[in-house]
């Protein structure tokens, strides 16, 4: 189960099972969320897919429908692409109320318009009662890359700065607050949002952004680890500069979680050359989703592949990906 949690287990499943098993057929596959295909006329298309399994289906600030649209939009956006079209696939559990499905579908329509794309093709399957959590959604999307954009995790290089687009931990905590057995009261809402407009604004300020990730499952820690490992660089960040809302910190406190391991659905982390950092930051802050963007750290030569956090006391600690699903603890 943990292999779907977006942590280390997910990465290992891809690396140790899927890629070797796919063999030659996955020769050109990249371990990133979106793959770039170059057409004969030089036009570059980004292609991505994701499947959404969310409990509960509705949570403070959104539902599975918005996640399914924004998730794939954001995967495309992390390559720099502006999304054009999305396919939608539904696996419905027998007995799902039509009203519920209708609300989810309406949310998807509104989300697509907000992201500026069309929902163009789809498929529906129904499984027996007891064989699904109401509804699972798969979306696949294509987008067009602007000329010149070359955004890949392996382009992070020493000296680059690390920028986070806003407050972290909102989505994960909002969803946990409704989980049976854990229920707690909070005004926190999921941050689910499309990031393609933010990325467009960033690229307009600096076409040479080195790397982008959206820290969903596995949180900021997983994104930073992925960049550090792929580029074989070290990443250092200052814990005190992380934008963590007080309520997220509080919830993490009594659940025994670390905010950098908690999922986001409308945030990105950017790796940018130091000369462009201020311009990119200003462009981000001018958008509605990047208002509290902040520089949190930098890419360094030392400790290739490792993410190091500087603590409030001035010491350092290694940051690892979370093991899998985030569970509350007593010790």
């Amino acid at each position, binding site marked *: *189960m*943990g*292999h779907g949690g977006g*942590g*280390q*287990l997910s*990465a*290992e*499943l891809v690396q*140790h099972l899927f890629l070797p098993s796919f063999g030659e057929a996955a020769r050109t596959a990249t371990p990133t969320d979106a793959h770039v295909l170059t057409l004969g006329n030089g036009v570059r298309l980004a292609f991505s897919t994701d499947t959404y399994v969310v409990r509960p289906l509705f949570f403070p600030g959104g539902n599975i429908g918005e996640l399914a649209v924004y998730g794939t939009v954001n995967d495309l956006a992390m390559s720099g692409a502006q999304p054009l079209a999305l396919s939608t696939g539904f696996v419905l559990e027998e007995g799902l109320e039509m009203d519920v499905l209708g609300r989810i579908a309406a949310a998807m329509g509104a989300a697509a318009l907000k992201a500026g794309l069309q929902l163009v093709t789809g498929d529906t399957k129904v499984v027996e009662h007891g064989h699904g959590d109401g509804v699972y959604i798969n979306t696949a999307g294509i987008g067009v890359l602007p000329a010149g954009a070359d955004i890949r995790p392996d382009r992070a290089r020493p000296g680059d700065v690390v920028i986070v687009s806003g407050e972290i931990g909102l989505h994960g905590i909002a969803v946990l607050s409704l*989980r*049976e*057995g*854990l229920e707690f009261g909070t005004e926190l809402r999921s941050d689910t949002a499309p990031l393609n407009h933010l990325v467009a604004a960033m690229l307009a300020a600096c076409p040479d952004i080195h790397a982008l990730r959206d820290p969903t499952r596995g949180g900021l820690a997983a994104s930073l680890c992925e960049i550090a490992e792929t580029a074989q660089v070290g990443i250092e960040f200052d814990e005190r500069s992380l934008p963590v809302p007080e309520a997220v910190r509080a919830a993490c*406190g009594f*659940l*025994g979680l670390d905010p950098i391991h908690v999922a986001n659905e409308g945030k990105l982390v950017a790796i940018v050359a130091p000369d462009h950092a201020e311009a990119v930051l200003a462009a981000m802050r001018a958008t509605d989703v990047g208002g509290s963007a902040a520089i949190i750290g930098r890419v360094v030569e*030392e*400790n290739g*592949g*490792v993410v*190091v956090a500087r*603590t*409030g*006391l*001035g*010491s*350092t*600690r*290694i*940051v*690892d*990906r979370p*093991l*899998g699903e985030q*569970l*509350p*603890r*007593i*010790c």
Partner: protein
Amino acid sequence: MKYLDEFNDPALARLLFEQIDAAATKSWAIMEVCGGQTHSIIRNGIDQLLTDRVELIHGPGCPVCVTPLEMIDRALAIASRPNVLFTSFGDMLRVPGSREDLFSVKAKGGDVRVVYSPLDAVNLAQEHPDKEVVFFGVGFETTAPANAMAVFQARDRGLRNFSMLVSHVLVPPAIEALMTSPTSRVQGFLAAGHVCTVMGTRQYEPLAQQYRVPIVVTGFEPLDVLDGIRRCVLQLESGRAEVENAYPRAVRAEGNLPAQEMLAKVFETCDRPWRGIGMIPMSGWRLAPEFAAFDAERRFDVGELSVSEPEARTLPRGRSAAGHTQAGPVRVLRQGVHPSHTDGRDDGLQRGRLCRLLPVPPARSAGGGASWLRPPPHRRSTSRAGRARCRFGTRTAS
């Protein structure tokens, strides 16, 4: 006063570091008993900023990690039954038994649910009268009042479908086991603050006197931990061996009397094997005869469990926790099988399920001691025998 940020103040922390540095004229080895303190030490990098003359040895203080293999296997067998709704704190789900963990049971279709409070499990029993609801009652003295209340309330509410698999462990017998181990290097203890919140500080007096060892009751925020270390060093330097309370805002000498009253009703003391240490006499709690009807061990006959816990048989008592820490500036921090106590330093567990719980070379320092590197993947062995190594404080001798 919010009781958090105030005790995280970097300027005051610097003062305390200086005080410890000034106080320690010799080298001292101090054990923080509690996994929570270990977590705070690692999370805040306290060990890096501390003078080399004070060595922190990480103790057995994580009830999740020391839950015996046999008990985990029992839990897995019960949770796998068709009519059982098995509830647990989140920590226990990834703790491996002989073959699998609760997560695997859940993935195979077992009804395993995480609860925040044991009372949630009692409520589930009330909501699902057709199911056998079992709660995995683990913990130190801190958690015991919550678990005791769950059993008590289940009886009060007349719930016949609720039971608890109890594997409670007690801190003072573990400290005593450490002190009687011939290989122990521990010279002073930071006692577990929240355990003392419940039990008070008096039960530590005989230990401090008999073994001539300072015991400082210590909290969990960085300033709390530092003050515990400071007081312990001051005692060691002046040749004192007393019980001292460095966590007075949460700990009274007498402890929490209503909680102790409930504990006396619901539990009785018993021998208990500790994973990675072995049997420690009178170091656990089990349900008292009056509450035997709620004992999941009695309710579910899981047959003979064939459990091999090699390290418990081959290691002398307390050996793995008795302070075989690596000398020098690199202090290897690994804290049992508890995934969240591994925070970056421990690699044996953060590798994930595909190659998890495998022995990994200790973390190395990349010069200067501030940078920590993980070992390269090819150095991970795949031997199952290595599982046993991730227990306390340090790697056991290998």
